[in-house]
């Protein structure tokens, strides 16, 4: 850039230029850090991930080990009570005398495994569909893919997930030569219901990007459609997709937990926060508040964390939009 003819004091010029040269990541981090709510969301998510990854180290007991209740008492025992063997139930025990805190940690692990798996598959499916549709805008491929997306979006996601579980059946499923574990099957079911949302976002971004000069330049230098799509355009679609992924993580966690709660998701004895909440319903009238409160709070915090994080990321990546949508 040429220097203006008029004599300008150096400090007037240098300060703004230095500010402008912040890289994308730095810029995002700078915006993100200012937003206290999204920072809180990030902290919650990181803590949930730590609990999930290190559940075997952090959990006081084996999540499926059953302890006996002391003489004259019966499970579920309230927080801070001890079993016959003398083990301390920090957050109480469940109906079989298992430690609720340990089960909640492991439940956090399975919930995040399931949600991350689902989002990854949904992301891949959606990016592929939306990328091709956007790049071949107006062609029959675009029309076909977007019709399918419209059709999928006409199902409420939980209803579609339940219908698919109903079709496949509960538990391990044999499809042709493949034997799908229950968890993998549920991940696919949830991924199917969420991939259209990714496809829509991806298509929109690709449309925006294909209008940019660098795509024309790549075309002129002889790149093939796939090369340009995968090599040039994809990089620029990552930020909006990450926002979408983070916001969708919240709803995916909710769908996964809802399915387990309804008895259609993960099956016992695998520790699952949704199943714990469902079991707790039978003990509400006995006053076993901790039985429901602990797993429910875990689910709530995980969803809240991803919602806050997603909101914050959206605002940091697109400050113009932020003014309109920030909450």
């Amino acid at each position, binding site marked *: 850039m040429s220097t203006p003819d008029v004599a300008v004091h150096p400090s007037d010029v240098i300060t703004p230029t230095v500010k402008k040269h912040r890289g994308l990541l730095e810029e995002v981090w700078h915006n993100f850090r200012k937003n206290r709510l999204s920072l809180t969301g990030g902290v919650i998510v990181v803590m949930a991930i730590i609990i999930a990854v290190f559940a075997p180290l952090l959990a006081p007991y084996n999540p499926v080990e059953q302890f006996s209740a002391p003489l004259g008492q019966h499970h579920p025992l309230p927080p801070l009570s001890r079993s016959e063997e003398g083990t301390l139930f920090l957050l109480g025990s469940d109906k079989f005398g298992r430690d609720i805190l340990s089960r909640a940690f492991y439940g956090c692990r399975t919930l995040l495994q399931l949600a991350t798996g689902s989002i990854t598959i949904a992301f891949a499916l959606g990016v592929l569909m939306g990328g091709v549709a956007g790049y071949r805008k107006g062609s029959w491929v675009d029309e076909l893919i977007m019709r399918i997306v419209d059709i999928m979006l006409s199902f409420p996601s939980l209803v579609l997930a339940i219908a698919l579980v109903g*079709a496949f059946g509960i538990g391990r499923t044999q499809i042709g030569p493949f034997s799908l574990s229950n968890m993998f099957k549920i991940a696919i079911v949830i991924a199917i219901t969420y991939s259209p949302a990714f496809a829509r976002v991806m298509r929109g971004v690709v449309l925006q990007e294909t209008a940019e000069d660098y795509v024309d330049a790549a075309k002129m230098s002889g790149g093939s459609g796939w090369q340009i799509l995968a090599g040039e355009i994809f990089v620029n679609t990552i930020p909006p997709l990450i926002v979408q992924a983070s916001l969708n993580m919240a709803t995916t966690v909710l769908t996964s937990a809802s399915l387990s709660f309804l008895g259609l998701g993960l099956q016992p004895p695998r520790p699952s926060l949704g199943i714990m909440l469902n079991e707790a319903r039978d003990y509400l009238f006995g006053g076993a508040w901790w039985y429901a409160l602990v797993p429910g709070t875990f689910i709530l915090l995980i969803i809240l964390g991803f919602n806050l994080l997603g909101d914050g990321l959206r605002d940091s990546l697109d400050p113009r939009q932020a003014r309109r949508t920030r909450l």
Partner: protein
Amino acid sequence: MGVYLFKRLMLAVPTLLGASVIIFLLIHIAPGDPVRVMLGPMDDPALRAKLVRQLGLDLPLHEQYLRWLGKALQGDLGISVTIQRGSPVLELLTQRYAITLELAFLSIIVALLIAVPAGITSALRQNRLSDHVSRIVAMVGVSVPNFFLGIMLILIIGVFLHQAWATGGFVPLKTSVRENLIRMLLPAVALGTAYSALLMRMLRSSMLDVMSQDYVRTARAMGIGWPSIIRQDVVKNALIPVTTVFGNSIGYLLGGSIVTETIFRLPGVGRLIIIGVDRRDYPVIQGIVLTIVLIRIVVNLSVDILYSVIDPRIRYGAEGE
């Protein structure tokens, strides 16, 4: 108007048809023989032959679909296999839809009662303490799973405060309107809370948008007081974009009612689909999913049309394409 209406209809019909193909295929993507799965231990040749004939499973796939669709268009959703053997699915659904739709309707009212005052106050007091508090409450409200909220309501009001009406169960409207509404209150709150938080967020940002418009500034400059600008211009205009969420809300509420009905033991459609999945009653599952998608598409279409009546720019935009 006619052109717009026609265009919207032309988009809705193929979507509905496409959805019907997926719903029809549900029975066929099931691994193994669907008849054996449905009959389970009751599998005997006579019953089996009858069911195969009833479902048309001996026909080629496309003929099966056309037959199924033709019947569905005439209101024949097939016959329940395991839940109430021999009863038409439509009959099972109509009684239960009354409950589910009542729940959805009451949830919308609960949501509006919370969202409209909260959204308006929050926007008017932007960045003040009450705004921050209501935004944080709304964020928690969006994030709380309705099953957790429902269980906590039962625990606090039903168990700790000993209120029998708060523990779930259903009283038909015909028996007692008052008792029915009292029992529906907590389920409606459980289902409506997350929705109200969503509405509140929309309304707040929409109000802030309108308040920064030129005509509001002009009105201010003309010396019109804030209260009357808010009443006459801002709220009315801010509510227009919020109506669009109503279309999607019905899908959200019907999905959410599955969980809510389970917790509060309401014999609605949501409860029925869970029983259907559990007992492998495919015609019942298909009937429920088909009607939910139909309701959702019809509501969406009506909202879009209503929206284009309120805000003519939408209509002209679509016609000008």
